[in-house]
């Protein structure tokens, strides 16, 4: 991350062979398992030409799948942003009974297979589920409909934002918020002008990951969607159906959209990551430069220009 080489004692330098070997292993793994598959996806998608590629994507059921996936993401991401900020806030700023339990529970969706997460909702809302009969009696459709897909995706993607913000908030502490309060800032004002800017890059990072997962989720959604073509198929489900029908060119054409999503996500992630984690390093370097500048410009500060004798002894130690 740093372009400044870290000085290391010579005896700790790994030999050239070991270094090349390690780099070689890592690179070939990347090429073999990440780069080549991605290329293969696009190659397969375009095997019958650009016209067939476009046709597979603009086909009505494919368009419905795209629409559904975007709709789900548009609902899930904002909800999880609110939940994530609220949860991280509560955990970072307050001590309360059950805090440790909540930290563990927030992680649960990562620990459980998404298929199981989907099954839980079938158990709850399905026709033979706990409140299924009541839902049917009131003509409310959750399973095999948009609400079910949204709920399943919500659960699976819920940890991303909170997980990213919690350590950030814990390390930042409360001082700035307290300062804003003593200056007369209202709760909302303090939140939007002080707290939110403090966590904005961490939040964006969480949003990017949450969105990628929301659009790409397969297991949980597969269980609750019912695979109704043109109605409850998200992009990943649509890809599977096409593939099972031996229509692999169309399957890969649609899959390439998810591939593009992955690439965009990775790029965004890299940018945001450098902002979040590179901050301390950059700030340090920035300060070094700034201090040098402080030193320079001090000689030109007004009082010194006019030759007025003014005691400003602390300026001489601005490198603190």
């Amino acid at each position, binding site marked *: 991350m740093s372009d400044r080489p870290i000085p290391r004692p010579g005896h700790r330098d790994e030999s050239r062979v070991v270094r090349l070997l390690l780099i070689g292993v890592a690179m070939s793994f990347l090429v073999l398992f990440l780069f080549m598959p991605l290329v293969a996806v696009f190659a397969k998608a375009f095997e019958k030409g650009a016209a067939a590629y476009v046709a597979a994507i603009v086909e009505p059921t494919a368009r419905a799948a795209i629409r559904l996936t975007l709709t789900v993401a548009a609902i899930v991401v904002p909800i999880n942003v609110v939940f994530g900020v609220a949860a991280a806030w509560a955990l970072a700023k307050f001590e309360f009974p059950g805090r440790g339990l909540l930290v563990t529970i927030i992680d649960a969706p990562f620990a459980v297979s998404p298929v199981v997460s989907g099954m839980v909702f079938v158990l709850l809302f399905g026709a033979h589920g706990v409140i299924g009969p009541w839902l049917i009696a009131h003509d409310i459709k959750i399973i095999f409909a948009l609400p079910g897909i949204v709920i399943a995706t919500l659960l699976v993607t819920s940890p991303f934002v909170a997980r990213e913000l919690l350590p950030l908030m814990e390390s930042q502490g409360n*001082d*700035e918020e*307290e*300062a*804003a*309060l*003593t*200056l*007369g*800032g*209202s709760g909302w*004002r303090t939140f939007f*002008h*002080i707290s939110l*800017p*403090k966590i904005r890059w961490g939040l964006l990072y969480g949003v990017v990951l949450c969105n990628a997962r929301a659009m790409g989720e397969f297991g949980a959604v597969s269980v609750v969607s019912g695979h109704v073509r043109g109605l409850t198929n998200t992009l990943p489900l649509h890809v599977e159906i096409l593939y099972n029908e031996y229509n692999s060119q169309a399957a890969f054409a649609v899959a390439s959209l998810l591939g593009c999503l992955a690439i965009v996500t990775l790029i965004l992630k890299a940018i945001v990551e450098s902002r979040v984690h590179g901050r301390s390093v950059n*700030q340090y370097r*920035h*300060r070094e430069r*700034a*201090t040098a500048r*402080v030193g320079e*410009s001090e000689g030109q*500060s*007004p009082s010194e220009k006019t030759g007025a004798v003014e005691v*400003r*002894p*602390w*300026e001489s*130690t*601005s*490198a*603190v």
Partner: protein
Amino acid sequence: MGIDVRGLSKTFGRFQALKDVSLSVASGELVALLGPSGSGKTTLLRIIAGLEAADAGSVILEGEDATDRNVRDRRVGFVFQHYALFRHMTVFENVAFGLRVKPRTERPAKSEIRDKVMALLKLVQLDWIADRYPSQLSGGQRQRMGLARALAVDPKVLLLDEPFGALDARVRKELREWLRRLHDETHTTTVIVTHDQEEAMEVADEVVVMNHGRIEQAAPPRDLYEAPANEFVMSFVGPVNRIGDVWIRPHDFELVLEPNGTTREAQVERVVHLGFEVRAELVRDDGEQLAVQLTRDQAARLELERGQIVYVRPTRETVF
């Protein structure tokens, strides 16, 4: 009365931070809360500010009962040990924050805010770097900006929580003198928390010594030193020898080369030259270790050196 605190108690879990503390600070006075860590001085300051709620007792600011008043309505200026600057705002914006968040009816016009902020920045001598960000400032500059920000809202009282604790010794000393001069100009009722007795004695009109959640003594610096109320104060404000029940300051010894009836024999163990001050460690004939402070001239007259035999007599003793 600037600040009137009556019967404050505060418990954190099983730790009692304050035990029935009462304190009065006259308007326009600068008072230091001095004590070891865990003595309750920061808790007391935060309760006065409203950042912490007391379990019992009342806080009266400028004659008004502020006990149940929200921190943002108390009009206190608070300066934090670790600055708590808004890192995404410039120096100017930081100082302007308290003015910009005022309700519409009280908020000054844009040009007024500008003039006021620039005047404050001039006062703390940061007007020439108003558009810099906190990360571009030195520690001393950051804390002066913290002070300007706190003063912007015309606080009834100014509260500083170990404001110079994170700075190096030289900058700390310079800022301390500067704070005193600033106070002589503005006459804002000020409370400063510190664990540095020299800082407290140098800056404050009155020093309040705290220990284990209680006030041990509140007195002007000179009285505190000349007439300490108890053993804790005696040992906390300045170095002291304890021989049985007798307390003797290191400078309250007379050293001579010949015995004169009232003196006792002692051997010089160690001599440390600190410029004007010379410190000597003696072992008296009864085995008591004595720390003695002399001027450079006195030490030169005695030709003080290690292993030498001298005759020593306390000139002033305190017994509690």
